[in-house]
């Protein structure tokens, strides 16, 4: 089953690569499009640019990714704590939840300069924006998880005369791990995107800066190499969360008769 999945993944990867090459070929050779190089350059050309500039790209990517990761961790923690507070107290939920939704209505593009003006530090801005993007899906998913704990499972805790803390530690928190990870999986690539966005708002380093300079300078090879690098960062962040989930939520993936929950 596992090898099968890898096989499927490989087939897809090859298919996408072939489609890309073919599309680039169509643009450049069949349609004689003068802008082919910027619309869709050959994949092999993009890959070779990435290899040639791997040092510079990696350095830039590292800056962006590290800040995104720190912001993601902070946002995740804040979201989780918010979810606990809202599940403990109906009042807190009633007061806080509408504001949480409103917070997601503010475009990050408008928010980022405000944050930068406040903290006056590029790294801190990246983290704050990444955290801002992360906390909501984590809080909303985890809260929904807490709320969907079955009554019978609670009754069992009640019959053991378990206190609130014990009930949270032994029932609510483990029960809500799968929805927590669902939130984290949504947030991880978004936090990378947020970090790249902040790069573009006048940072000196980061993959977003490479992207922007290449675009202004008309250096399409570097531009595409940066775009692919950014995409890879998003994928890497997702896979990292997926890996953590496999470790922390082993019962979901354990095979056997029946279909889990």
């Amino acid at each position, binding site marked *: 089953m596992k090898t099968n999945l890898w096989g499927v993944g490989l087939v897809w990867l090859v298919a996408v690569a072939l489609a890309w090459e073919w599309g680039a070929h169509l643009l450049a050779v069949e349609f004689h499009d003068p802008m082919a190089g910027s619309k869709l350059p050959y994949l092999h050309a993009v890959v070779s640019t990435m290899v040639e500039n791997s040092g510079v790209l990696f350095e830039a990517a590292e800056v962006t990714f590290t800040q995104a990761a720190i912001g993601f961790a902070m946002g995740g923690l804040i979201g989780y704590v918010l979810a606990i507070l809202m599940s403990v107290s109906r009042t807190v939920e009633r007061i806080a939840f509408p504001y949480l939704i409103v917070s997601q209505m503010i475009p990050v593009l408008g928010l980022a300069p405000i944050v930068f003006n406040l903290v006056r530090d590029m790294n801190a801005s990246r983290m704050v924006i990444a955290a801002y993007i992360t906390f909501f899906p984590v809080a909303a998913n985890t809260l929904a998880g807490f709320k969907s704990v*079955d009554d*019978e*499972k609670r*009754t*069992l*805790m*009640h*019959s*053991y*005369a*378990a206190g609130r803390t*014990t009930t949270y530690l*032994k*029932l609510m928190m*483990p*029960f809500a*791990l799968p929805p927590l990870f669902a939130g984290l999986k949504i947030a991880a690539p978004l936090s990378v995107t947020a970090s790249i966005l902040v790069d573009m708002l006048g940072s000196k380093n980061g993959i977003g800066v490479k992207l922007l300079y290449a675009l202004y300078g008309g250096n399409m090879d570097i531009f595409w190499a940066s775009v692919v690098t950014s995409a890879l960062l998003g994928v890497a962040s997702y896979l990292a969360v997926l890996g953590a989930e496999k470790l922390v*939520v082993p*019962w979901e993936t*354990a*095979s*056997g*008769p*029946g*279909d*889990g*929950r």
Partner: protein
Amino acid sequence: MSSAVVDQHNPGPVQTPFGIDPSSPIGSVIRIQGVNMVYPGRDGHETHALREVNLDIRQGEFISLLGPSGCGKTTLLRIIADLLEPTSGEVLVFGVTPRQARMNRQFGIVFQSPVLYEWRTVRNNIRLPLEIMKVPKAEQEDRIDQQLDLVGLTKFANRYPHQLSGGMQQRVGIARALAMKPALLLMDEPFSASDEFTREKLNEDLLRIWKISQKTVVFVTHNISEAVYLSDRVVVMSPHPGRVSSVIDVDLPRPRSQESPEFFSLYTRIRRGFEGVYHQP
């Protein structure tokens, strides 16, 4: 408080460690007097889930609460377990209120569905109440091994619940309740979701476990032959309003054969009692 329960770990004859109410009959572990459960309805009509229930449950007996749905058998069990509070009447469990008995962890409950925590292995599901009761680690392992052996799941100790069949899951639920070493076991239609063959096997196992552990068992069921097969006494309940209509002693020697004439005559007697119930308008 809980240390008294913890210390009580020899599976020999159970001495009730908590003082029995001197006014109750000798050996009575549960005393139910004049219990009413009334739910106010939308149109001002009150629903009598239980009316004037009186019952004494003796130490070490296997007693069934039998009746059709709506007779209040589960309600009565939940009142004993302090999961519901009666509208009026008095309930004493080991001479104290159900709430206190719950706080002292004096009973284990087995629910209709297994209610296992899917993130815990079989072993750790059985461990759950022991962690909460703060049983020392080494003793936890001993008790878990003992219960796994008793329910025949030693080989499945490290599986997750979804990797087990329904019958096996229910056994884990029983092992989890027994691991607390309660003097009283409350069971709410525990095998009603199982097929006939699994149910018979589980019933045999339950009797074997009951004999070894000598606990008092209160067993809710709607299955007449199950009640007759298992119980020392069958409390026959009827609905509208929920009440005890008769208490029948089952004086048949164990193991009981469901095909014996004595078994059949008892079964028929209880069944006839219900016929009136169903033909009511």
